[in-house]
């Protein structure tokens, strides 16, 4: 098994054993989409396109937030307790370590965002009596756009958590998560609804963010990480 797979698999297993993060994530993944989508359904009435677009709108920030939630364990905890130092001595490049961890964070975050989508669809279908069809664009959104954004968020937040001290991380963590959500809201304001154009723009911005995350991670050094261990 490649070192990338070894690292990613471990982070996935740890995420599913992190009871507090799972509970917090599940609460958010259920509460936020249900409240939001029911609000959208109430105002959209019988407009199924608007409801489907609302579901797509909700899953993206949920996925990004889940990435932030699981990053705290994969990157920040290891830095706070110093175990990252031992990992840095392994015969694995820093980039590979970052890639494996970001991927390992992205998998549970993505699954949570799928749970969120299913819950939102179920809520609208039952509570608002408006059955939601498996819209191909919604499936494309969930299958392609959401994972790219989650990877980008996990990569950027993870790189920042490796590079910064604890106090800076507290501030920047919130700044990054709100920055992501603001960007999502702004993009959906520019290209509203669920269309191929919207998905193409969201995917392109997501890929650009992923490239930015990769670039920033490449600038992080072991010295920087070790010197910011508390």
């Amino acid at each position: 098994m490649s070192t990338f797979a070894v690292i990613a698999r471990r982070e996935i297993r740890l995420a599913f054993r992190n009871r507090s993060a799972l509970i917090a994530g599940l609460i958010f993944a259920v509460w936020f989409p249900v409240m939001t989508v029911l609000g959208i359904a109430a105002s959209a009435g019988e407009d199924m396109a608007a409801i489907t677009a609302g579901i797509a709108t909700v899953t993206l920030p949920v996925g990004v937030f889940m990435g932030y939630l699981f990053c705290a364990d994969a990157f920040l905890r290891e830095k706070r307790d110093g175990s990252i130092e031992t990992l840095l001595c392994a015969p694995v490049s820093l980039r590979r370590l970052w890639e494996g961890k970001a991927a390992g964070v992205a998998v549970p975050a993505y699954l949570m965002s799928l749970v969120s989508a299913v819950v939102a669809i179920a809520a609208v279908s039952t509570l608002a009596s408006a059955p939601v069809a498996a819209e191909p664009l919604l499936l494309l959104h969930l299958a392609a756009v959401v994972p790219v954004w989650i990877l980008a968020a996990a990569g950027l937040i993870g790189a920042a958590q490796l590079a910064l001290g604890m106090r800076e991380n507290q501030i920047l963590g919130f700044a990054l998560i709100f920055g992501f959500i603001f960007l999502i809201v702004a993009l959906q304001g520019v290209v509203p609804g669920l269309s191929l154009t919207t998905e193409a723009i969201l995917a392109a911005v997501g890929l650009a963010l992923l490239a930015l995350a990769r670039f920033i991670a490449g600038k992080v050094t072991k010295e920087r990480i070790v010197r910011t261990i508390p």
Partner: protein
Amino acid sequence: MNAVEVRGLSRSFNGRDILRDVSFTVGHGEIFGYLGPNGAGKTTTIRILLGLLAPGSGEVRVLGSDLAADDDARARVGVLFENNGFSDRMSAADNLAYYAGLYGIDDPAERVDELLALVGLTDRRDDPVGTFSTGMKRKLGIARAILHRPEVVFLDEPSSGLDPGAQRMVRDLIVELSRREEMTVFLNSHHLDEVQRICSTVAILAGGRIRAFDSVANLTAASGRPAVTVALAGAGDRAYEAVKSLPYVTGCDVDGDRLHCTLADPAATPDLVAALVGAGFRIEEVRRSSRSLEEIYLEHVGQREGGA
């Protein structure tokens, strides 16, 4: 080629010199003790050797390589920091298996079981590490550090937080590894007794500089003041009066029936014994004294602190 080479190493943080022109070498298969007070720069040295920090100036090599740039060379080196490097939520076996995967170990399950048996944790193999005591985590940390059979292993305070029994187990394990696997051990420790017992060579670091670097035997013997302790069958005070003015006795003290004499020359020990016997004293034991590593350490660190 030495296992570890440090030449003219200097490093400063925020304008403060942490290491100043540090040089030493560690031979293959040696157990090397790196001593110094808190803040002396020991951990900084280890971090530079492991490629985690860049040297300000000077050169470091481990197994002839710069570990900062050479991923393959890092596979030949093991490390145990104060943090053991485990996830508390994973079991002992899973934690070791994770590192086995990172180091590309063939048949990791067998090696993990072998090491758990070595450190006496077989019956806890599936328990989360978070439920372990400090000593158990430390033992598991040592198992992790040697999991991939490294040629050089860096141990940072391996005995800290351990009870005397566990300390002894760790000490015996280090000696065994050095002997059986010809592993070079770089030991950073505050346990001077432990270092004196198991290390072949030591370096004492204080104020960012190497204050002493030699074999333990040379350091403890090279006091320049050979000393002898003579246990008598009574009459210690009279014996003291008899020997204190002998020409080769530079200092003498009495403690009950024991005489502690420092001599001008170690070869004068038989003369001292002959003088005591000739004066009618009965001798039960004669022992040449050497200074402990603790005395030598305090002398060097004390000098530094006094001069600072």
